[in-house]
């Protein structure tokens, strides 16, 4: 009966104006975007924040295409979650492939700002720049000056005190839903139900009055991997009467809808290299606000290529949402690389190393083919 009443009222219009919304919400670990007037949170990688327009807006969904070894994607995800713990946000971790409790306990520890700046100073002191170039912008740097995030030391784990001060929630797909009447719900529906009830219980929906709302960071590891039970071998259109992948695409559409209505930021990684039909990735990307792809150099020819000597992989920025406006932040290049430094994961513009040969043009020969040693060490023309 109640459902009938609500349906009738919805037929008039399902949009409810919020009335006087001149109130300013101040949430921990956020800053307001001048571009789109939205609250931003840090991704945990300050250089990535700079590329995405200052951070990730609250209520948005970021899709990360995993690298094949799933090493660096885990680093990205851990930095995102660790930033939540450091900022005092609530953290929800969902994973079927690995234990979410272990993932939380292995979050990296934040690097103190002083130490971070010292490291930067060390690096800058170690390299002498000709005086006439000193005032120019460095090609490799992203705009970190306005970032409010932290760097993380990926070799040390976060202290127990920090973790204890944070509200943490886990989902591993093994818990039975109380309303499922003994029949196990598909994993996607189970996770959606869990997220919805959690957001309701924590009063994190924007429509729910809450004096002190907080941000919830949702991290979902390896969505649509083999463990989730999707039939990823089928291509679209093979059977028009039985739509394939509807469970995962429906879940993704619902996750976007949930994020839009609540104080949440969702970070989802998918093993896109497993998808037989690229249309599936296209559909997931359609619902995501940001789509980032990782391509690791591990085990590839690029690992020994001197062009990529200092880096660990390529980062593809596939989609940046305009957020609250029509104009998305402008990204001046598509060539981004990431590398693990001593105490931070950073993203930089890819640029060619200086060519110190006497000829003006670069040699067209591939230096990789000329290498003899297995270690990939090349004759270095730089002596310093």
């Amino acid at each position: 009966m109640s459902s009938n009443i609500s349906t009738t009222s919805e037929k008039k219009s399902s949009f409810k104006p919020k009335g006087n919304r001149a109130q300013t919400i101040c949430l921990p670990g956020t800053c307001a975007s001048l571009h789109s007037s939205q609250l931003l949170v840090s991704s945990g990688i300050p250089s990535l924040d700079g590329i995405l327009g200052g951070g990730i807006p609250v209520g948005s969904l970021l899709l990360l295409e995993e690298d094949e070894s799933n090493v660096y994607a885990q680093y990205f995800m851990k930095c995102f979650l660790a930033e939540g713990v450091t900022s005092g946000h609530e953290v929800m971790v969902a994973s079927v492939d690995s234990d979410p409790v272990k993932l939380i306990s292995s979050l990296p520890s934040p690097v103190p700002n002083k130490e971070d700046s010292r490291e930067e100073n060390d690096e800058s002191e170690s390299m002498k720049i000709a005086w006439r170039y000193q005032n120019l912008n460095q090609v490799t740097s992203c705009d970190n000056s306005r970032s409010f995030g932290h760097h993380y030391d990926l070799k040390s784990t976060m202290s127990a005190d920090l973790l204890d001060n944070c509200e943490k929630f886990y989902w591993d797909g093994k818990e039975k839903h109380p309303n499922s009447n003994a029949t196990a719900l598909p994993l996607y529906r189970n996770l959606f139900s869990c997220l919805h009830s959690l957001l309701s219980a924590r009063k994190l929906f924007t429509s729910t009055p809450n004096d002190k709302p907080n941000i919830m960071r949702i991290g979902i590891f390896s969505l649509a991997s083999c463990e989730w039970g999707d039939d990823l071998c089928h291509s679209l259109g093979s059977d028009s009467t039985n739509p394939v992948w509807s469970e995962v695409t429906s879940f993704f559409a619902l996750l976007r809808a949930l994020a839009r209505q609540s104080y949440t930021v969702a970070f989802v990684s998918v093993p896109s290299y497993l998808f037989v039909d690229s249309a599936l990735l296209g559909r997931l990307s359609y619902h995501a606000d940001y789509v980032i792809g990782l391509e690791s150099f591990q085990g590839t020819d690029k690992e020994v290529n001197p062009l990529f000597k200092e880096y660990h992989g390529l980062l593809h920025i596939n989609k940046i949402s305009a957020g609250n406006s029509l104009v998305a932040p402008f990204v001046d290049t598509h060539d981004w690389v990431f590398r693990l430094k001593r105490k931070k994961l950073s993203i930089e513009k890819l640029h060619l190393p200086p060519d110190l040969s006497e000829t003006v043009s670069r040699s067209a020969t591939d230096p990789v083919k000329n290498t003899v040693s297995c270690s990939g060490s090349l004759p270095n023309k730089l002596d310093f």
Partner: protein
Amino acid sequence: MNDSLNEALLSCGVNTTSPCTNIFVSDTPDTCGQFLTSELLCQNLLAGRRVMYVTLHNTFALNCNIAAKRSIQLMNFYKNGYIKVIEGQKLMTEAAAKALEGQDVSKHPFNFMFNSSDGSLKNLFLAIKYCVNDWRSSNESMVILIDNLSTLLSLGVSTTEIRIFIQYCYSLLYPLNSDLKTRLGNLIFVSLDDPADKEFHLIANYLSQCSDVTLSARPLSTGRTNEVDGSLHVCSSPQNKRQQEPFKKMYLYKVMERTTKLFAPGMTASVL
């Protein structure tokens, strides 16, 4: 309002506020056709027409923010009853949550998420019909804008169901209790066209075939630049007996916060 876009469309013989012009807005995963949707929404409201807005991918609040930057207050139109909204994002969350709690959602507009039988979009159609019936009975000029049909495909609705739903929506353009043969309004559908996705492509082809005007926002095929966001292809069907072939024209566009600039290829500031 957006004079550049409006003039360009009029030069192609496209009157976006005419009740005889059904429009299909097509975009790709690499382009965002939101500027066209907002433009069409605002133009029809400013022309004094009633708008039934079914938003499945974005929220109405987003359109309010975009229009506010162009000095148009959609909330005023909403309060005065000129626009009715079906918020797909809220309704799909509500339907899914209720269904998973074991409640009855058989009469919910989004019950199709859990019911893949024939006529699964019936409730959504009835919700639209309920909203526009007042306007149909008083012969008000109106437009039904559905943004974006691709979301229905993601939610598991088959292409056949969507095609039937589109045909049913056409029936809402005629007066309720009258013998009038004239149409009260027009339909605007927004959908993705991705050649890599067979279902998206099928629906896009179907909409192109049954619409009077197709506006396609496409990315630049040769790369990207700060001065151009993409190309806008306008394709309108023959409007008189003398015109045998559809009219086609292509512009380059640059979206800005307050306006959209359209120009012919080779006429960007950097080239000139």
